[in-house]
Each structure stands twice: as structure tokens, then as C-alpha cells.
């Protein structure tokens, strides 16, 4: 019978299934970080258990690390915030105690767990991948079944190498045509969420397919799958093709020799068969997607940059009206205002959504030879990993950012969730390449507008959001293309 990609991955990892559909799924790779693992290790200790297969686990500190060079250089012991220090120390200690591989804080391979994983080849096509972080959906870009889990499940995977799951339904998002110039995977992700809503993917595995998706680089596919969770889906998927194979080839933990040949053969079969059944499908015309900007406090509150903030009268019901009213108040916006009138005073380029080398290149292309608008008070560029940082520096991107007046930081989650000192002040408005614009996400009272790296860079220069056409006009004047 014709199977979807998700069906194939599920079947290859099914250990046991009860009559009621409750299943035991085998986990190939478990990624860990400091924020959701300590309580799991504690649970393991209390029950006198040890990890089922220690080689399945790989840990890295990322969420709560300082991104300041001086603080990083001084090492963990010198971290000023004692509560964070204890948490980071706990990860080191637990990895040591349970003999789990950890990439330490100042290793060049350290980075956001979802950037580090694929970069190291710790995540491969055909794997089941879990991590105590909802953006584990990112790894579906390589054709892996990857999703976020809670801390109890982290403990469960450590102890049993399995997860108790029910099979999800299949949802295909087919994106036809080609994305216009200057429109990125981030814009596509936001457009999908705008279309199906933040609960649209609940209960589904979301497979992205179609010409516009095939044309994306691996980085772009990761950005797209990363935000599957913002569409309510625990996992996003893209079929394996040449782009995938070439990306994985030569990665440090990728298979070698005979193993590579066998692996590649299996990986090449990881695509949905013709005629496979999807419980839900939508089609999106890629050529009609425009650059997106979120205006509200949920990723589905999004508009194209040449659009406007919705009006209360346009809302279908009372709940939606109240939601809009609350978002407008929190965001300090008025109904019906053009998106291009919104003026950020902070810029954040980073996060597991958009902190890979391609993202930094995209932002740097806009910023080259330009300076931040005087209205921008804070501008951070935070590479996703030490390797991304080194590559960017080799290409001179760091100089472009610093000459523009932005701060070039050490890798970590940073202002995506603002657990460390990188945060917005109450009322501050940020053009951010991250994935969540919830109230207080980037700092209590902070206001977040989710955009692509190019859009964030353009807003940094102009002091307000600008449509791609305007940036190109500006580019012509200054003599640099987008």
C-alpha cells in the first residue's frame, strides 16, 4: 500500500502496538539541553535507573548561556547569575554521572541544539529524534521523524529508549511554483501558519512538499520545519532528495564507507509514495507568497508587509474580537494601520529558526555598507553555533554587522526566549527572526514582530518595516542588491 513519509518512519520504529492504538516507538537520537533535563536525570537517579543506550544521547548547553564574549571566556564558574550557573553545572554533572556525550560551553561545536544536531550529523535521515524542546520539529528537514517532548518523556526516553505515542494523522502542505525573489522559507512558514492557524496542525505530522519546497536549501527546509510547531504540529517533514544527501555527506557523525552506501539506499526511499493517503492537504501558490510580518501575540497574527493590521469589525466572532483587542493593546498598535508604519526599536537576528550561515548572509546582504537607523536602540546578531560563527567571520559578515552598529555575540538561544540577560525592556518593540511572538516571550512587556533575516535587516536600516520593493529601491540608491 502506498505510504506517506511519516508512515514509513513510524513503521520502521514501531516496537509494539496495543489494540487501542497506543504504541511504543523506538528513539534513535535523543538531544538534551540544560533547561528540560535536570528533573529527568533526577527522576532517573531516584528510581535507581541508568540510560538504556548512552550512545543515543547527545547534550549541549544553549538556552541559558551567556552570549557575551567576556562572560563566555571566563567560563561557567564566573557566570554572574548563580541560578543559571547551577542549571548549567547540573547539565555538565549529569552528563558526567550518566556517561552521556556533551559538547561543552566553549567548544566551537556548541550551539543551539537544533543547529548543532544537523551540523554534527547527530541527526540523520530516517532517524527518530526527540529533545525536550518543541522546536525539535526542525530536524524533520532531513527526513527524520523528530518532535519535542516534555521532561517526563525525557526521563522516559533515557530509561527505556522508547516513547509511548499514538500515530498522528498525515497533513500535506504542497507549495507549488517558486517563491519570489527576496521571499524566504521564513515567510513561507509564516504564510502557512497564517493560513491554517496555530492549531491547524494539531494531531498531524506536517509534510512540506512541492517545487518551492524542493528548491529550498537544507537551511531553508530547517526554518520551515522548525515552525511546524507554531502551526500546532509536533513534527514537520521534508522528503529526502539530493539536497539532503549532499548536506549529510561528510558530517562528523554521518556514516562512512559501507555504512554510508547502505544508509543512502534507505534514505533515498524516504519520500511519500504516489497515491499515499493524506488526511488533510492544502496547496499554496509559492509565487504568491509575500514577505511576512507578525503584528500580534500569536504567530498566526501575521500579514504580508504590504498589508495592514486587521480591523475589529473584520473579526468573525467575539472570541476573535477580544483576542485582537488584547493583542492590539499589548502590541501598542491600532487597527487598520499599515505594517510599514510599525517602527521597531530593537533587532534580533538569531534563534534555531534563523541563525544558520544562510540567514546571516541574507541579513548581511541588506546591511552591507549601511548603518542602523538612529531609532534602533538595541541590535543583536547571535549565530546559531560556534561553527556558524566561525564561517561568518571567515566571510567577513561579522564586520558588516558591527560596522552597521550591531552587536556580534556568542552562540545560544539568547533573545529568542530571553532566559539570559539578552532581553527586551517593557514596551520595547523588536523585529525578530525567532519563532514566537507570545506576550513577554522576549522579555516581560516586550513586543515581538517575527520576520525573516532580510526583513529584520531592512527594518534595522529604515527604522520601520519596509516592503521588499522599497528595500530594492533603497538598494539601488546605495548600490547593493538584496
Amino acid at each position, binding site marked *: 500500500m502506498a505510504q506517506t513519509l511519516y508512515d514509513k518512519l513510524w513503521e520502521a520504529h514501531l516496537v509494539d502496538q496495543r489494540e487501542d492504538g497506543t504504541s511504543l516507538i523506538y528513539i534513535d537520537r535523543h538531544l538534551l539541553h540544560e533547561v528540560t533535563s535536570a528533573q529527568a536525570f533526577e527522576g532517573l537517579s531516584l528510581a535507581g*535507573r541508568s540510560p538504556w543506550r548512552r550512545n543515543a544521547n547527545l547534550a549541549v548547553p544553549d538556552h541559558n548561556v551567556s552570549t557575551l564574549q567576556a562572560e563566555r571566556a571566563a567560563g561557567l564558574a564566573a557566570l554572574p547569575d548563580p541560578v543559571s550557573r547551577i542549571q548549567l553545572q547540573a547539565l555538565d554533572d549529569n552528563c558526567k554521572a550518566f556517561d552521556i556525550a556533551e559538547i561543552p560551553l566553549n567548544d566551537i561545536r556548541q550551539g543551539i541544539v537544533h543547529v548543532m544536531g544537523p551540523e554534527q550529523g547527530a541527526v540523520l535521515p530516517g532517524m527518530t529524534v526527540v529533545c525536550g524542546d518543541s522546536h525539535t520539529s526542525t530536524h524533520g528537514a532531513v527526513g527524520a521523524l523528530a518532535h519535542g517532548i516534555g521532561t517526563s518523556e525525557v526521563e522516559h526516553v533515557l530509561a527505556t529508549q522508547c516513547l509511548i505515542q499514538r500515530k498522528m494523522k498525515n497533513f500535506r502542505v504542497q507549495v507549488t511554483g517558486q517563491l519570489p525573489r527576496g521571499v524566504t522559507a521564513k515567510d513561507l512558514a509564516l504564510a502557512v501558519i497564517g493560513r491554517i492557524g496555530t492549531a491547524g496542525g494539531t494531531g498531524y505530522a506536517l509534510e512540506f512538499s512541492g517545487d518551492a519546497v524542493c528548491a529550498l536549501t537544507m537551511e531553508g527546509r530547517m526554518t520551515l520545519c522548525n515552525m511546524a510547531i507554531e502551526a500546532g504540529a509536533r513534527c514537520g517533514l521534508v522528503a529526502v532528495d539530493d539536497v539532503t544527501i549532499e548536506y549529510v555527506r561528510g558530517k562528523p557523525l554521518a556514516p562512512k564507507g559501507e555504512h554510508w552506501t547502505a544508509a543512502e539506499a534507505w534514505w533515498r526511499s524516504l519520500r511519500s509514495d504516489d497515491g499515499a493517503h493524506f488526511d488533510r492537504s492544502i496547496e499554496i501558490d509559492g509565487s504568491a507568497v509575500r514577505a511576512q510580518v507578525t503584528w500580534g501575540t500569536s504567530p498566526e497574527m501575521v500579514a504580508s508587509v504590504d498589508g495592514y493590521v486587521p480591523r475589529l469589525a473584520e473579526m468573525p466572532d467575539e472570541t476573535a474580537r477580544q483576542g485582537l483587542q488584547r493583542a492590539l493593546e499589548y502590541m501598542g498598535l491600532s487597527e487598520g494601520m499599515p505594517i510599514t508604519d510599525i517602527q521597531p526599536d530593537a533587532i534580533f537576528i538569531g534563534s534555531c529558526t534563523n541563525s544558520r550561515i544562510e540567514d546571516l548572509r541574507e541579513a548581511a546582504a541588506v546591511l552591507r555598507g549601511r548603518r542602523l537607523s538612529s531609532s534602533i536602540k538595541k541590535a543583536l546578531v547571535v549565530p546559531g553555533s560556534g561553527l556558524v560563527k566561525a564561517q561568518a567571520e571567515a566571510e567577513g559578515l561579522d564586520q558588516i554587522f558591527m560596522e552597521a552598529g550591531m552587536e556580534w555575540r556568542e552562540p545560544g538561544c539568547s533573545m529568542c526566549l530571553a532566559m539570559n540577560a539578552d532581553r527586551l525592556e517593557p514596551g520595547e518593540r523588536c523585529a525578530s527572526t525567532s519563532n514566537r511572538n507570545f506576550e513577554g516571550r522576549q522579555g516581560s512587556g516586550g513586543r515581538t514582530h517575527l520576520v525573516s533575516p532580510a526583513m529584520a535587516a531592512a527594518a534595522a536600516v529604515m527604522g520601520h518595516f519596509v516592503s521588499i520593493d522599497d528595500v530594492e529601491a533603497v538598494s539601488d540608491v546605495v548600490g547593493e542588491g538584496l
Partner: protein
Amino acid sequence: MRAFTQHDGLVAPMDRANVDTDLMIPKQFLKSIKRSGFGPNLFDDLRYLDEGAPGADNSVRPLNPEFPLNFPRYQNASILLARENFGCGSSREHAAWALADDGFCCVIAPSFADIFRSNALKNGILPIELSATQVQVLFDMLFETEGFRLQVDLSANTLTLPNGDIWPFQIDAFRRECLLQGLDDVGITLESTDAIKAFEEHHAKRFPWLFEDLVL
């Protein structure tokens, strides 16, 4: 895990859609390496007028008088009535820990985000999904009647309203069993140790590259 069979509790409202886990427990509290003590920081940004910090004495902080969970009539509530897509966003189980720690053992909503639902069930919190219309009826009753309570009977899969109406609800059979008996997942899965070992052996033959030593 504590077992859940029957519960009679006061209901409190969370009258907004897409309540995310960042809102339930803001990031600064995720620095804790404990599972307990999150209760006073549930909905911290909404609940207090100042900014919360881990380790601070919450009892002396100024409460937001406009936040329903602070109203006298909802004190000691144990059932939260909510809207669509409750618990979306981050996988942080701290959100479920905070709810449980603050005394909630049941959330009623038209829909839940997947990861939150699973986290809740693992912490003895019963997520009950009802139709949007039913939830609206409950909200209307709740706002009209001070001291509005509901009786939840998991062994019968029913909700009893103060007017005597009995509403059935659906829940995954396996999860229901776990809640009724207070079973913990790891224990259940380890009963399948032989099956896991057999699968693993087969898996390692098929995909040997997955079983190499992880050398950094």
C-alpha cells in the same frame, strides 16, 4: 503519579484562546532544576503587577486585581475553564508542574496543544475536551454563579453540572487507565523490556550506523 478518579472542584476562568506555556510559566522560572514550587508563579505576568524572579517571596508581591484568578470567588479553584488551543507553544513541562502545584487537577477546553496535553496527563492533570458550544455554556454559568463547581468522574467519563446535567467526555483509553491507577509511564514501558531488546537487535542489523559509538 497521583491517581485521578473523581473530583468535585471550584471552577476558575481563563477566558482567552491560544493560552501558551510561556504565559503559564515565564522563562525566568525555567532556571530552576526542581519539579516543585512553580505554583505561585503560574501566569506570573498576568497575576502580579511587578516582574517575578526565581526565588523571590511571592507572598509580598502586588497582585493584579483585574486578573480573574486573583478574584476572591475563584480562590482554591481546582478546575480551569479555558478556550481553544490551550497550552500551545513551548514543550516546557514546567507549565503542567505550575498548574498542579497551584492546585489545578483538571483543565476544560475545546482543544489542547499536543505536547501540553501529554505533559498534563503525566502529572495527574486531566485535560477534558468539550465542544466550543459546551465550553461557552460553562463559561456563561461560571460568570453567572458565584461558587460554580463541577464534578468530574473519570471512572464514568462524565462531568456533572450543578443543575444535575451529566455530560459525557472522551479520553484516550490508555491515558485514562494510567490516570485512574496513577501509573507512571516508565514502569509500564519497562514491562516491555524484552520486546524493546528484540526490536533493538533487529534495528541494529538493519541500520548498523545508528549503533556506533558516539565519539565527539
